[in-house]
């Protein structure tokens, strides 16, 4: 019983935390020279549009983290052949696809207002496009194999091969080539990159709180999904026995 109460407490804390992040991220004023913690810096060229960093960047980070987590459980499946690892692997891939779509849609709407068009083939847009393709291919492969064990093995192998290629797009290409996103090779006016200037302390605190909120939601969702899938599989086993 105490576990259930603890879980409810955790959900309430997460809800309050997320609400606080949303209110602070959207509500704090942006001024040219912030004088105390309640004011965010106004970045020339971005102005109010800079607020996207609180929501777009955590989703993009999570889509990569989810991919790596799914690959990790894929490797564990290949080593131990436990069906539970495959459930975890596919759950994380599914959530990764969700966050990948969220990052693409939010970024693309923002790009229309800041850069003039929905899609510009900036290196980072290419990388999220490749990630979407990999997720799509992963689920297309899974839906094409009927035997559960074969499906788990082959999709794990595919995610590992993709995991060898994808870092080139995600971590290397956007940094060595010119592009529109902050952190590109030709980035001179240092946009709101997390690690460099442009952001002040309170902006950074809100950003990391937002990342924490997204990770909390991600863990909650994956936990729910894994438990639900386990129940469905147990039920199928039960009905097969009868």
């Amino acid at each position, binding site marked *: 019983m105490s576990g259930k109460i603890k879980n409810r407490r955790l959900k309430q804390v997460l809800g309050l935390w997320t609400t606080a992040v949303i209110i602070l991220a959207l509500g704090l004023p942006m001024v040219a020279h912030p004088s105390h913690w309640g004011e965010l810096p106004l970045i020339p060229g971005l102005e109010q549009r800079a607020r996207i960093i609180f929501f777009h960047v955590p989703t993009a980070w999570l889509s990569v983290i989810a991919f790596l987590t799914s690959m990790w459980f894929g490797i564990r499946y*290949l080593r131990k052949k436990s069906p539970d690892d495959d459930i975890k692997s596919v759950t994380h891939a599914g959530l990764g696809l969700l966050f990948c779509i969220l990052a693409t849609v939010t970024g693309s709407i923002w790009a229309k207002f800041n850069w003039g068009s929905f899609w510009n083939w900036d290196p980072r847009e290419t990388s999220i496009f*490749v990630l979407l*393709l*990999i997720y*799509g*291919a992963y689920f*297309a*492969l899974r839906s*094409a*194999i*009927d035997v559960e064990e*074969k499906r788990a*093995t*082959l999709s*794990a*192998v*595919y995610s*590992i*091969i*993709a995991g*060898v*290629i*994808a870092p*080139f*797009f995600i971590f290397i*290409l956007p940094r060595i080539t010119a592009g529109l996103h902050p952190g590109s090779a030709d980035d001179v006016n240092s946009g709101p990159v997390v690690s460099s200037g442009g952001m002040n302390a309170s902006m950074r605190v809100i950003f990391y709180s937002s990342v924490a909120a997204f990770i909390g939601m991600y863990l909650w969702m994956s936990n729910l999904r894994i438990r639900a899938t386990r129940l469905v599989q147990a039920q199928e086993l039960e009905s097969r026995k009868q």
Partner: protein
Amino acid sequence: MEDPRKMKSFLVSTKAVFLKDWRSELRTRYALSALVMFVLTTIAIIVFAFGGESPSQEVLAGVLWVIIFFSGMSGLARTFVAEEERGTSLTLQLLSTPTAVLFGKLAFNVVLIIIVNTLAVLLFLFFFSTFRVSSVGLFVTTLALGSIGLASASTIIAAIIARANTKGSLFPVLSLPLLLPLLMTVIHATSLSSEGAFFSEGLDDFRILVSYIGAVTGVSYILFDYVWKD
């Protein structure tokens, strides 16, 4: 593989797998004839699509690799899919080691795609008079490394999709995300070669291609056991 006798037996069985595929290909000429006709029809469509226009070198370099990519996609899955369709994969599992099967079939795919690509380039030069290859060494190296890279990534994907239900349509879907870095690099190197760049200017691209081939072949070598064994 430190043992020289093991190494020798590995080379012998790899060669046997390669020769088996090569002989059955020469008997039926299934993949070769399909690929040659594919390249020919695609080039004809592109000639008509351009009409009387003479497109720039960059466009032609891209179009050449689009042809090569899709002809690879239509023929390179054949080696593994044929084993499943003929029902011979179990026999091959008994008679040979997974590593020999992987490298034998990889060698076969490399030979196949190099033949097809050479033909595609010759036809391309024949039909598009504006397409120039100014630095031959750069171009030939790009074509060779690109072909090997294309074969190395598609061989392991072919092994995966041979076990799935919708083989034909799944192959390009799974391969494209993996082949994209390769295609971006070879298209860049090809347009360099038609601009008449020095060989040394392409070295960065070649480094990417060689490391790509090494990474993909290495990971295929590690993972092929899981794909191949039932």
